[in-house]
């Protein structure tokens, strides 16, 4: 049975629909990311789970019980805010202890749990610091300890890492994943950073304009994007216009001078999506000319001008010779690496 369930949840502000028809089942202990550009409704959905906003339609259930009827203060969810929202007039320990105080946890047990929570996020010894005397990363950890110490049924993270610099963000990602694995709290992360979503989550919910575009594991959403939006949003991708020719036997999928046996189900004009790192240089295939070649350490990035429009190719720097700028090449890929969709408007 689903642990946390959102059933056709919608939110309207006046005439504007911010979230529409949002259905999701979250299993206990799962790490879910809501991924999408700003304004896609991911934070609104999170706030509805938290109880700061009431859905216009739909139901939210936690362990089968209606969550919307529960006052936000009684939901028992742990929330880490983008701005951390720490209490600046309290020390780190007092911040963490606040939730326990509200639950009337006895003083001795409270002190022990606060100490353990701060130790878990690597802040042992910082008990008496005030938030404004701490770095962004440390404040982030206090906020996480404060949310986790109450043993929340669900941990909600609202872009918690977006205010940290790149290196610290990576460290915190690893740490966040480890902590979540250790204590097994069901977690929902809101983010616009696809790398963050992919490296942390069990499943990703890709959202655009208030609607779910795709729900799937990081691999699924990356390898098998359900829509053009998903393939564009999750990393770089090449979209080539192709056609499926059912007149010949066996039927063929053709893009420029590249062709392969046609997949079942589709007909006529299609779009072929292929990740840049899945394209290789071969003897036959899409003919292209390399416009620029950029060396990026562990890989090469090629921008090509192909007969089906611009193309990006990424090749691992494995020591083999790579084509030079201006060179004519043939782009080829395995049919199982691409995804094919009917081309809209064609």
């Amino acid at each position, binding site marked *: 049975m689903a642990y946390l369930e959102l059933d056709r949840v919608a939110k309207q502000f006046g005439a504007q629909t911010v979230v529409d028809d949002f259905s999701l089942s979250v299993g206990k202990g799962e790490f879910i990311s809501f991924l999408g550009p700003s304004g896609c409704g991911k934070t609104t959905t999170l706030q509805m789970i*938290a109880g700061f906003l009431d859905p216009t339609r739909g139901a939210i259930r936690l362990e089968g019980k209606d969550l919307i009827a529960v006052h936000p203060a009684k939901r028992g969810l742990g929330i880490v805010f983008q*701005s951390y*929202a720490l209490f600046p007039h309290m020390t780190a320990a007092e911040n963490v202890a606040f939730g326990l105080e509200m639950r009337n946890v006895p003083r001795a047990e409270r002190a022990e749990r606060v100490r353990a929570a701060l130790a878990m996020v690597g802040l042992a010894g910082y008990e008496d610091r005030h938030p404004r005397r701490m770095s962004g990363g440390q404040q982030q950890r206090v906020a996480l300890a404060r949310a986790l110490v109450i043993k929340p049924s669900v941990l909600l993270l609202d872009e918690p890492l977006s205010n940290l610099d790149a290196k610290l963000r990576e460290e915190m990602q690893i740490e966040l994943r480890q902590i979540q694995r250790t204590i097994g709290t069901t977690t929902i992360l809101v983010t616009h950073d696809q790398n963050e979503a992919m490296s942390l989550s069990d499943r990703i919910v890709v959202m655009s304009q208030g609607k779910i575009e795709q729900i799937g594991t990081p691999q699924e959403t990356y390898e098998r994007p359900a829509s053009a939006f998903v393939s564009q949003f999750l990393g770089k991708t090449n979209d080539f216009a192709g056609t499926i020719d059912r007149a010949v036997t066996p039927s063929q999928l053709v893009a420029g001078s590249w062709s392969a046996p046609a997949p079942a189900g589709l007909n006529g004009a299609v779009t072929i999506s292929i990740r840049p790192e899945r394209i290789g240089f071969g003897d036959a295939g899409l003919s292209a000319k390399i416009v620029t070649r950029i060396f990026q350490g562990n890989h090469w990035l090629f921008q090509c001008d192909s007969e089906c429009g611009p193309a990006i190719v990424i090749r691992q720097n494995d020591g083999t010779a790579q084509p030079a700028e201006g060179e004519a090449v043939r782009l080829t890929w395995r049919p199982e690496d691409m995804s094919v969709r009917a081309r809209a408007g064609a």
Partner: protein
Amino acid sequence: MSAVAEERGARAPWALTAPALMLFVGVLLIPLAMTVMLSFHDWGQYKGIEPVFILKNWKEIATDPYYAEMFWRTFRIAILTTLLTAVLGAPEAYILNRMSGRWKSFFLLVILGPLLISVVARTLGWALLFGGNNGLVNKLLMSFGAIRSPIPFMFTETGMVVALAHVMMPFMVLSVWAALQRLDPQIENAAMSLGAGPVTIIRRIIMPQIMPGVLSGAIIVFSLSASAFATPAIIGGRRLKVAATLAYDEFLNTLNWPLGAAVATLLLVALVLIVVGSNALIERRYAEVFR
């Protein structure tokens, strides 16, 4: 850098601030020093001011209970006014801050509006409403038989506190408002998600954070109320004098400039001590919130 250039560099700030400094010295420090000097001069009904150095005026203020009562009343009124503006102004600012866009700007204008009207006009308004038998409110209430005699307002300390609080309210509201702007917009949600109810949120989370705003507002209101002239002069008149009206009377009616100067100097020194002292206390107590 050469020694000459370095010297020029060191002099530049002085040269740049010189005009403002000269103005400051000319219109503030010199008159102030002269007032302090004046308070040590002698004065007589027929001989006028004698530029000698005596402690007569200071002795008179220190020994005559009339002056003690005057200063005590001045500070009592200032403290009560400060309390009243804090008790009304802090919630007012909080409510204002929670209003949505259009209402917020409208009510902010309502609160700041009185600042555009002269203090004299505003205080005279109170006199029109409550001034004796002809005061509008008094007349109305008496015609209904709700009260028999006019509500005592004019020439009372209560009236003075009410009128002063009205005049000072914008300073308190603005000061608390500024503190509220520094609050994390998610802070109440954060407290709520941890299980805090509305009363706890205000008492444990909001109040401690806006306290510096309330206190700096209190310092402004207190010092302005203690040295206020127009409102006490109109509401209190000659019957209920405070330090500022007393100094005025000594200067312009009794023509005892040295005594007036001593009263003014004492008021200034007392105010500076109180303001600087409480400011230091607040900064120490709320060091973490101020950072």
